[in-house]
C-alpha cells in the first residue's frame, strides 16, 4: 500500500488497484464493476489522493479496500451520512459511495433519501443484486415479491422498492441505471456521474452468482438482451429490440410498448428527455413482463449542490460580519468588570 508514486498527471488503471486481494466470490458481478471504476478513474483527471471511496456494510461495501485511493469502510447503511459530512467539510475531494440494495435501501434508507435531497456532489454506486449476500441469502428490499429465500421459505410477502424510483422520489438530480456486464455503458455512466455537480446515483444491476444467480439473465444473455433492454439516450426516441422494431409510446398518462409497423413510426415514439421528471419516473417503474428494462440516465438536472451553498453562506457571513473574533465572541451580551 505504500506506493511511492505521488500524484502524477498520467495515471493508469493500475494506479487505482490496491495491494489487497479481492475477496468476492469467483464470478461475482462486483469484479466487473470494480474493473470499470478502476478503468474510468484515471480518465477523470483527479489526483488519486483527492479521491475517497466510502461504503457501508455488505459485499459491495468491501469496494474501498480494493481502490488505491483514500477509503472508509464504515457501518451498515451510514455511508451517505459519513460521505455528506466529509463532502460538506471538504468540497475539494471527489467523494464516492459504494453501496448495495440492503445497505442503501433497507438499513440506510433514511440517509440515502436525504443525501439525494440535499444534493451534495457525491457519486453513489448502488450494486443491486436483489439479495443479501454477505449474510448468506435473505431477501432484500429489492427482491421480487414471493421470492423464496432462507428467511422467506414460503416466499416473501414484501413489496419491493425500485431504487431508481426511490431516488427520483427523493428529488435526486442525477438518476441512472446500468448493468454490471455492460462495460462500456457503465463506464460512460461513471464518467457522467463524476461530471454531474450534485448527487449522482447509479443503480447497477449486479449478478450474485451464489445466492441469486441469473436474476438479470434476460438482460444480459446475448440472445435476449436486445429485446429486454431499453437504452435511454437524451433526445432520441425510445426504441429497443433485436431488430430495433419496438418502442415506447404515450397512451393517456402511461407508456405503452408498440411495434414499429402498420403505420406506427419512430415519430410516434416518446423522445427521451433527461430534464423531464414525469417521464423519468414513468420509465424508472417499467419492466418485465410487459416492458423492457430501461438503462441509462433517467434524469439529469442541475440544481445547487449543498456544499456549494454552505460555502457561499459561510463566505457571505465572513463578508458581512468579518472573520470571527474569539475575544469578542466570548464577551458577547452584557458584561461587567470586577476590580
Amino acid at each position, binding site marked *: *500500500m*505504500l*506506493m511511492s*508514486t*505521488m500524484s502524477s498527471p498520467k495515471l493508469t488503471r493500475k494506479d487505482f488497484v*490496491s495491494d*489487497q486481494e479481492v475477496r468476492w466470490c469467483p464470478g461475482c458481478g462486483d469484479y466487473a464493476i470494480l474493473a470499470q471504476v478502476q478503468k474510468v478513474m484515471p480518465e477523470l483527471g483527479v*489526483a*488519486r*489522493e483527492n479521491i*475517497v471511496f466510502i461504503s457501508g456494510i455488505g459485499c459491495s461495501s468491501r469496494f*474501498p*479496500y480494493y*481502490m*488505491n485511493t*483514500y*477509503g*472508509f*469502510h*464504515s*457501518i451498515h447503511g*451510514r455511508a451517505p*451520512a*459519513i*460521505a*455528506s*459530512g*466529509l*463532502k*460538506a*467539510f*471538504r468540497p*475539494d*475531494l471527489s467523494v464516492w459511495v459504494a453501496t448495495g440494495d440492503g445497505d442503501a435501501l433497507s438499513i440506510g434508507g*433514511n*440517509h440515502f*433519501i*436525504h443525501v439525494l435531497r440535499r444534493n451534495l456532489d457525491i457519486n453513489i454506486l448502488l450494486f443491486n443484486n436483489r439479495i443479501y449476500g454477505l449474510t448468506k441469502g435473505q431477501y432484500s428490499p429489492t427482491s421480487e415479491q414471493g421470492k423464496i429465500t432462507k428467511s422467506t421459505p414460503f416466499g416473501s410477502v414484501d413489496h419491493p422498492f425500485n431504487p431508481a424510483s426511490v431516488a427520483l422520489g427523493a428529488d435526486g438530480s442525477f438518476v441512472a441505471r446500468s448493468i454490471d456486464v455492460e462495460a462500456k455503458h457503465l463506464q460512460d455512466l461513471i464518467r457522467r456521474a463524476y461530471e454531474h455537480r450534485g448527487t449522482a446515483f447509479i443503480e447497477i444491476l449486479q449478478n450474485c452468482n451464489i445466492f441469486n444467480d441469473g436474476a438479470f439473465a434476460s438482460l444480459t444473455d446475448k440472445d435476449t438482451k436486445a429485446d429486454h433492454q431499453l437504452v435511454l439516450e437524451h433526445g432520441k426516441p425510445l426504441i429497443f429490440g433485436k431488430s430495433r422494431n419496438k418502442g415506447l409510446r404515450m397512451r393517456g398518462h402511461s407508456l405503452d410498448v408498440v411495434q414499429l409497423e402498420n403505420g406506427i413510426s419512430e415519430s410516434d415514439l416518446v423522445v427521451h428527455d433527461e430534464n423531464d421528471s414525469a417521464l423519468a419516473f414513468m420509465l424508472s417503474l417499467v419492466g418485465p413482463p410487459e416492458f423492457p428494462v430501461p438503462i441509462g440516465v433517467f434524469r439529469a438536472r442541475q440544481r445547487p449542490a449543498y456544499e456549494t451553498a*454552505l460555502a457561499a453562506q*459561510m463566505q457571505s*457571513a*465572513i463578508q*458581512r*460580519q*468579518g*472573520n*470571527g473574533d*474569539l*475575544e469578542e*465572541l*466570548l*464577551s*458577547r*451580551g*452584557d*458584561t*461587567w*468588570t*470586577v*476590580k
Partner: protein
Amino acid sequence: MSALPETAAAGKSVEERTSVVIRFAGDSGDGMQVAGMQFTNESALAGNDLSTLPDFPAEIRAPAGTLAGVSGFQLNFSSREVFTPGDDLDVLVAMNPAALKVNLVDLRSNGILIVDTEAFSDTNLKKAEYTSNPLKDGSLDAFQVFPVDISKLTALTLKDMNLSARIVSRCKNFFALGLTSWMFHRSIEPTENWIRQRFRKTPELAEANSRVLRAGYNFGDTTEMFATSYEVKPARIQCGKYRNVTGNTAIALGLVTAARQAGIPLFLGSYPITPASDILHELAGLKNFGVYTFQAEDEIAGIGAALGAAFGGAAAVTTTSGPGMCLKAETINLAVSVELPIVICDIQRGGPSTGLPTKTEQGDLLMALFGRNSDSPVPVIAASTPVDCFYAAFESIRIAIKYMTPVILLSDGYLANGSEPWRIPRTAELPEVPVRFRTDPTGFFPYLRDETTLSRPWVIPGTPGLEHRIGGLEKEYLSGNVCYAPTNHEQMMRVRARKVAGIAAEIPPTEVRGAPAGDVLVVAWGSTFGAVAAAVDEVRARGKAVSHVHLRYLNPLPSDLGDVLKRFRKILVPELNLGQLVKILRAEYLVDAVGLNKVQGLPFKVSEIAQCILRALEA
C-alpha cells in the same frame, strides 16, 4: 433610572440580605423564563454571585392554567459565593393558581408570596384543582402574601395604546419583573435595553413591555403595600471581566475556542433534541468563525457526518441527549475502531426512553462508559457547573485530538439551562491544542502509533502518497489492513484499551475539598457539584471530618483516586440516578462506597445531601 429606589423618602425600610432565592412561576406561555433570565441579568450586573434553575414542561404550550403547564425559573443571588440555585424559596411569584399549587411546597415559612389576584378566578382555581380560593381560605397564613392585581394593572398601564387583549396579557411578566426588581434594588436599565433590542422590529411591543416594566417598578416604590425592600450587596469574586453563561452556551463557546486553538474548523453534525438543541443553535450562528453546522436527518447521521468531517480533518462534534446516545452507539464504536477524533456531547435528561425531556438526570454514565458492543474504551469527561461546561468541552476536544479517539462529554439539563457568572478567560490562559496532520510518506503506516500517547497518525484525504483505507473491521496492528488473526485482535484490543487508560498520566492529582483524610468522603461527578460542595461545607462548618472529591474524568479515573479513597472511613456517592458511579468505585477500588440517589428530574437540595452525610457520620 437609578439603581436604588427612593425608598427612604417614601418612608420605607431597607433590609440587608446575604442571599435570596426567588422563583418566577406561571403558565408556560406567561413568559416566566424571560422574566427569570432578565432578573438574572440584572443581578449579575449588580455584582452578585448567582445560580439559576429553569424548570419547564416538555409541552411548549400545555393547556393554559393547568398544573401540567406550569413553568418556573429559580434564581439564587448572593453577596457570597453561590453553589446552587437554592433549596427553599425566599420569594415566590405565582402568576396563577396552578403555579401556586405546584410551587408553594418550596416556599419557606414566612417567605414572600406575590400573586396575580385576577388570575385566581373560579375557572383557574378549578383547573388547578383547588376546592377553595387559597387567597381567602387562610391556607397561606404562614407566608407574607402580597396579592397584586398584576393583570389589571398591566391593562391599565397600556389602555391608551390600543393593543389586543392577547398582547396586553403577554406583557404582565414584565410587571412582575419590575416589581421584584424594585424589591431587591435591581436596576431595570439592562432589561429596558434588552426589550429595545428584542423588539426592535416592533417598536409598539418594545414600548408596551417597557412601560409595564416601569409600572411594576413604580408600583413597588409608591404603593404602601410594600414597606420593606431588600439589598443584596455585590459578592467578592475574582477580578476580571464577567458575563452570565448557561451550560449549553458554555459548551458551544468551549468547542469553538478549542477548535480555534487547534487551528482547524469546527464541524457539528447534530439532530435537534431537548435539552441539547441550544448548542446547535448557538453554533449555527457562528459561520464567520468557520464553524460548520450540519442538521442531519437523524441522530445517526449527525454523528456520521461529524465522523466523515473528522476523517477530512475537522474538529468534529455531535450533540445529543440520552435517546440520541442510544442511536449513536454504533458510530461511536466505529470511531473507536478507526481511531478518529470526535466529541460526543450528551446533555443528559430523565429517562429511560423519552423519559423526562426537560428534566435533569445523571443516568447516562454507565452508557457512556460501556454502552457499546465489545470492549470499547472511550474517555468520558463530565462538566460540573454551567461555567465548567466551557472548560470541559475544550478539554474534550483537546483529548480527542491528542489521542485520536472519540470522547464523551457529559452535561445535563440542569447545567444546560442553568446559568452563573463567568470570568471570561483570555485565550492566552488556555492550553494549546496541537494538531499535526501527517504528510510524510516515509515509514508511514496508518496505525503506526506515537510511543507516548499510542495514538495513530491523523492523515487526511488530499495528502499525496498516503492513500489508505480505514474501516470497522479489525485491522492489522501496523498496516491497518483487514486482519482476522487471533493474536492480532488481542493486540489491537489491548492497545486501544491501553491508549485510553494512558490518559490518566496527564490527569491532575485529585483535588480534595477539605482535609485529605477523615470520616466521610463524598465522591460525586457532574452537575451535583454545587449541592455537594455546599452540603460538605455546611457539615464541615459544624466541625465534622468530611471532604469532597468531584470527578471530572470518569474514564480513565485519576490514578491517585484509590489512595484518596483509602484515607476515609466512609465513602458516600450522591448521584441523580440509581447508583452508577458507586458501582464503578466499588468495582475498581473494592471500597464499601454507599450511594445517595435521587431520580425526580430535579437536582439535589443541599439539605438532602447534608442530612445524608450526617447520618453516615452517626452510623
